[in-house]
């Protein structure tokens, strides 16, 4: 073998190894090298990867062209020298490796940085490196084989990928943050799925997006968003698109379809539906929870799309956030509804409804009725809204009792009590009936006390008025019985037989009952002397008398206490006129007139009753005893009236002067 010829090859390192003075090294002249060394050198020089060898006990360094570039300024001096003489800086890290390899072990190093010099330019490369033993024919380890693989381009790609992923992750995080912010601001539960759909749709640049709830077999869409007016469904049945999809759905896995035409899980019918809806690719993420049912978030594309794992993850995140936001908004809406219901109820109440904190005793709520009853602003007037402020409105006589009742409610009792308040605005006293009750927390402690205050002022006044009226009615009835008793006795004494008695007593009792009905209506229709006179004349049979009776006088109101006895007197006058007097014949006339005059400074009603008999008409036996007694004695006695009663052949001339004393508050009827 020609020494000048081996090793073969035209490379720089083949040339250098060929011409190197190996005889001066422990390897000896190249012609004496064992075949194992020569084979290893051949393989090394032929390798396109940077490769080197360290041979023998001295670890003599040999390397190829690619490796020479990595050695940089250490090349070519490093060739043929012991490794640690050639590269002393490598000793600390390399010595243990060398030892391990010489005992027959292979060592692999990943991703190490190296600098290479190519045409005088230094650049950084990334390498994967492996060191392995070289054995001779006997199997003994005689050297170390080291090879580099340049992974710079790969590492570059990886780094770029990592950067992209980081950017995407950051963008996704930012998106989710923005989504959360927008959803949190929404109070209307129905607005949430629509907003989430729109945001995801725009972010992922898909054709449409939807959020739905699982209702049995169906998915009912609660919020949808579509680009370019793509048609939207309101509900669909998943099983109609393929049973394989239902399996994924039940397992809680995302349903990912990149192209409906190539996905074997889709049924042909499902494919037709999707084509009609212009959906070519889609993702559906389901959230299942036994207690709450489930929700589906879907994104759809009108063109085939290779969905990434992070997109699927994003949609799952969005689905969860949307669901949580809907739940939150529903709970809040329910709470608002609750509050609103209470407010409507309390604000419409005519009673004062209030709530106080059991700890601070401050007012937490007071209904508007407070302003009407107490005449104070419900949040204004009392800066503190303390119990003391309220108790000062209660009249002093009732204050201690009212506060004691509040204290009982604070200790857990329900209390009803009556109290009076004095309104600061007008000083008016008002009666209230308070119902106070404890409001307990979950642990049964009194957290608040509530109360309902009813203004019973009008009720009280009515009750008092009723009491007076009942007493009054009793008095009147009893008195009336006594009067009836008296009339019966008088009539009986004056009647010659029972027939006459019956006729008279009937008339008198009827007259008395007319007066009673007049008195019972007197609150609404005050009684005037005219009413009384006409009532008695009407009782005679008005049509017969009209042309012969003349009634004139102003409207003069008379006291209730005067009415009964006056009416009885007028009744006797009228009856007598018809039976014995002017109206007992065809020609007689009756003139009744009255006016008011001041007598001794007091107003007085002057009434005259004048009967004129027709000339030549015989006078019937006159029985005017009772009427006369009433006029001449009863009126002066009971009413302090002055009366005259003059009966002669010409007729009857009767005058009554009745004092119209002012209506005192003690006016109570006879």
């Amino acid at each position, binding site marked *: 073998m020609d020494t000048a010829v081996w090793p073969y090859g035209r490379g720089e390192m083949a040339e250098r190894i060929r011409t190197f003075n190996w005889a001066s090294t422990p390897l000896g002249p190249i012609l004496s090298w064992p075949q194992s060394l020569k084979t290893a050198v051949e393989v090394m020089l032929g390798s396109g990867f940077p490769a080197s060898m360290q041979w023998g006990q001295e670890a003599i360094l040999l390397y190829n062209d690619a490796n020479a570039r990595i050695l940089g300024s250490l090349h070519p001096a490093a060739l043929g020298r012991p490794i640690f003489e050639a590269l002393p800086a490598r000793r600390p890290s390399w010595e243990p490796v060398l030892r391990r390899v010489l005992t027959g072990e292979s060592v692999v190093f990943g991703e190490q940085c190296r600098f290479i010099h190519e045409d005088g330019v230094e650049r950084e490369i990334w390498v994967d490196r492996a060191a392995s033993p070289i054995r001779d024919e006997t199997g003994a380890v005689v050297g170390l084989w080291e090879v580099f693989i340049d992974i710079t381009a790969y590492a570059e790609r990886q780094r770029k990928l990592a950067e992209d992923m980081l950017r995407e992750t950051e963008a996704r995080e930012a998106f989710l943050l923005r989504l959360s912010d927008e959803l949190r601001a929404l109070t209307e539960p129905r607005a949430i799925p629509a907003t989430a759909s729109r945001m995801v749709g725009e972010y992922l640049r898909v054709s449409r997006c939807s959020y739905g709830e699982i209702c049995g077999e169906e998915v009912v869409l609660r919020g949808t968003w579509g680009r370019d007016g793509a048609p939207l469904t309101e509900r669909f049945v998943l099983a109609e698109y393929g049973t394989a999809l239902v399996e994924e759905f039940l397992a809680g896995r995302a349903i990912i379809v990149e192209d409906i035409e190539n996905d074997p899980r889709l049924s042909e019918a499902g494919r037709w539906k999707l084509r009609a809806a212009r959906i070519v690719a889609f993702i559906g993420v389901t959230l299942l929870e036994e207690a709450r049912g489930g929700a589906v978030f879907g994104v759809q594309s009108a063109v085939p799309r290779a969905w990434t794992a992070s997109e699927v993850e994003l949609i799952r995140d969005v689905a969860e956030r949307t669901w949580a936001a809907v739940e939150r908004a529903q709970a809040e809406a329910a709470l608002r509804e609750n509050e609103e219901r209470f407010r409507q109820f309390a604000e419409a109440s005519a009673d004062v409804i209030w709530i106080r904190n059991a700890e601070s005793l401050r007012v937490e709520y007071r209904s508007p009725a407070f302003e009407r009853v107490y005449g104070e602003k419900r949040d204004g007037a009392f800066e503190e809204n303390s119990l003391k402020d309220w108790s000062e409105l209660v009249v002093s006589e009732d204050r201690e009792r009212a506060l004691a009742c509040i204290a009982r409610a604070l200790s857990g009792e329900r209390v009803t009590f009556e109290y009076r308040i004095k309104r600061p605005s007008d000083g008016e006293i008002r009666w209230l009936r308070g119902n106070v009750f404890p409001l307990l927390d979950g642990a049964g402690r009194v957290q608040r006390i509530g109360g309902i205050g009813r203004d019973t002022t009008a009720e009280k006044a009515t009750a008092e008025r009723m009491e007076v009226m009942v007493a009054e009615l*009793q*008095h009147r009835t*009893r008195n009336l019985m006594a009067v009836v008793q008296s009339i019966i006795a008088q009539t009986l004494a004056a009647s010659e037989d029972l027939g006459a008695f019956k006729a008279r007593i009937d008339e008198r009792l009827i007259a008395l009952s007319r007066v009673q009905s007049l008195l019972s209506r007197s609150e609404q229709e005050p009684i005037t002397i005219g009413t009384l006179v006409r009532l008695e004349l009407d009782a005679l049979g008005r049509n017969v008398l009209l042309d012969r009776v003349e009634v004139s006088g102003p409207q003069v109101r008379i006291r209730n206490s005067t009415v009964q006895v006056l009416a009885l007197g007028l009744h006797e006058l009228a009856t007598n006129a018809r039976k014995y007097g002017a109206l007992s014949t065809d020609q007689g006339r009756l003139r009744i007139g009255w006016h008011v005059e001041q007598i001794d400074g007091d107003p007085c009603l002057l009434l005259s009753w004048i009967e004129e008999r027709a000339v030549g008409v015989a006078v019937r036996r006159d029985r005017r005893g009772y009427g006369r007694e009433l006029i001449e004695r*009863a009126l002066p006695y*009971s009413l302090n009236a002055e009366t005259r009663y003059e009966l002669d052949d010409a007729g009857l001339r009767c005058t009554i002067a009745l004092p119209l004393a002012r209506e005192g508050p003690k006016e109570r009827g006879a």
Partner: protein
Amino acid sequence: MKSSGLARKRILVVEDDYLVAMDIARALERAGAEVIGPAPAVEAALDALEQTVLDGAILDINLGGEMAFPVADALMARGVPFIFATGYDAQVIPLRFTHVKRCEKPMASEQICAALFG
């Protein structure tokens, strides 16, 4: 109708209604009593009370709107026994007269006698 208990007793009748007053007076007279009055109002009753030594009195409480209590006070001050003839319930009557008997109208002379001297 004779009632020995009322014989020759001087009884003041205070009653604003003429017919009722006359009835009571007649009943008392039939029982042998001497009727003082009847008086329709407080003033007239007090006048009669001043001028006569009384053995008893019957008072209507409501005299045409004015209450008869001043007359009752004057009678109590003189130690004259009296009764209220009234339709009112007890609660209308002041506490100081709670011991005074009440007769509901209409009434018989026996009732009056029993209430006054019984």
